[in-house]
């Protein structure tokens, strides 16, 4: 604190409290709507105090989904989202950490060429190559499969960069000592490098889990069977028409369920989340 200005401190708190409330307002209304009957939402203005349909709405969507539009149970969608988020996070971390290990700890022909190949993928987000990528996945028979949902998304330039950056800071003496002791490269990787990388892995895991959970365009393209919908896709499939035709209470219950896992990951793993966010963007 540079100087004591009580008025300014009060103003800061006021702005922050207003900000927190404004940011939380949509979430609150969503939660309230998820505990009401549909008729209560339709009677404008809807009440802003939670109703008594919490159990009814949530058990309805978890067990059976909506009654119009998509009828897939949300529990299946949550399972699919979990599989997708975990497979993408773990897949990205695994193939990136071994790729950076190769690039940092070995000298071999075309090393820089491979590094640039990985780097260039930064410039090819899925949004710019929608149709050809869809064709490749369809030719490989991976539509409506978990492999199709995850494998095309697990190449990661940012994760490879992050691990490369981190390996550069690992003292050379460690590798030297390992070599003197007769440990091969993989032994060194497992016993020395991997334990040292724990925080980087945790940080990346948080970021990539959220990335995988929140994917939209990709699952939208390659899942046509309801049993393969992810939670985020499920919500947009429950929107069937004009705003009065939707089962808003059920959609909002699904929205809360779809937000909960990634929000918990962010809040409970806040330290790693911030570290991961700042480092992956370097």
């Amino acid at each position, binding site marked *: 604190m540079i100087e004591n200005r009580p008025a300014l401190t009060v103003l800061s708190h006021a702005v922050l409290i207003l900000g927190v409330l404004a940011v939380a307002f949509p979430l609150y209304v969503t939660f309230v709507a998820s505990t009401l009957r549909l008729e209560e939402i339709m009677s404008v203005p809807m009440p802003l105090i939670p109703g008594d349909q919490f159990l009814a709405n949530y058990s309805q969507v978890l067990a059976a989904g909506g009654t119009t539009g998509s009828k897939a149970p949300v529990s299946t969608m949550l399972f699919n989202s979990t599989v997708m988020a975990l497979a993408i996070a773990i897949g990205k971390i695994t193939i990136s950490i071994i790729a950076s290990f190769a690039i940092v700890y070995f000298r071999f022909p075309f090393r820089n060429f491979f590094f640039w190949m990985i780097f260039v*993928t930064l410039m090819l987000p899925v949004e710019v190559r929608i149709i*050809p990528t869809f064709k490749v996945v369809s030719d490989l028979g991976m539509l409506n499969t978990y492999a199709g949902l995850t*494998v*095309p998304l697990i190449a990661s330039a940012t994760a490879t960069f992050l691990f490369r950056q981190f390996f550069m800071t690992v003292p050379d003496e460690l590798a030297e000592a390992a070599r003197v002791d007769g440990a091969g490269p993989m032994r060194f990787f497992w016993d020395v490098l991997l334990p040292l990388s724990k925080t980087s892995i945790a940080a990346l895991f948080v970021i990539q889990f959220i990335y995988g959970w929140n994917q*939209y*365009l990709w699952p939208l*393209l390659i899942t046509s069977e309801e049993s393969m919908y992810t939670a985020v896709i499920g919500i947009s499939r429950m929107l069937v028409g004009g705003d009065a035709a939707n089962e*808003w209470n059920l959609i909002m219950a699904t929205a809360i369920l779809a937000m909960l896992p990634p929000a918990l990951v*962010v809040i409970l793993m806040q330290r790693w*989340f911030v570290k991961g966010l700042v480092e992956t963007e370097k």
Partner: protein
Amino acid sequence: MEKRVVFRSAWLPYALLAPQIAVTIVFFFWPAAQAVWFSFQLQDAFGLRTEFVGLENFKALFADPHYLASFRTTAVFSALVAFWGIAISLLFATMADRVLRGALAYKTLLIWPYAVAPAVAGVLWAFLFAPSIGIVTYVLKRWGIDWNWIIQGDQAMLLIVIASVWKQISYNFLFFLAGLQSIPKSLIEAAAIDGAGPMRRFWTVVFPLLSPTTFFLLVVNIVYAFFDTFGVIDATTQGGPAQATQILVYKVYYDGVKAADLGGSSAQSVILMAIVIALTAVQFRFVEKRVQYS
């Protein structure tokens, strides 16, 4: 920078790189090359015959008023998202950097929207602003504002800007907070001793020192508005009404998937790739600069 100590093996490094490179080739390079190839071709309506047409698809695109309008829509949309996202989060971060009490609580309560999927963010705001039942619509109508984003293009644009900014504030906030905390307190103290008040100190000392962060966030936010907001748009306006919110990415998707115009959609993909490459180049030049300064 290179490692002094390295391991030797004729095959191991290739085996370690193989999974990453395989995924990269099959799902990145091959499709990207195909997009370029398709962009020079014209398919007949049944997809039976394709013909090499050179730059015809590109010529057709730039003669298409809808495509040019989509460029303008994208520019307006990304400028609004980047400006408001940065301005609001800079305000919050500056305030959060000042307060001592409850700083962690404020931070936690401001960062959680990062976890919300863009499509879900869109649904949340579409519900609040729903023309017949939305709670915000109700308040606006009481104030005499006729709100219906399903018919009015400007309001549809406003809706997707609000949803996109709301989701992005948490990200910008964290970067600004980190930037503010790395500014040496002695600089601000010196300005205070010279008699500069809080506003003056912010604009003459703090804001210039934050400019690398601001510039970085500007690029990131533009990339976000260009690509990651697809979910917001598809879950709410779907590009409508009358293409008022059809940004470039949405048009690629719409023309390619819904309208099955392979050549035209691929040509748009190629143009988008060029835009991403330019944005990435800008970002990297900036990163190099920052390394030199530190």
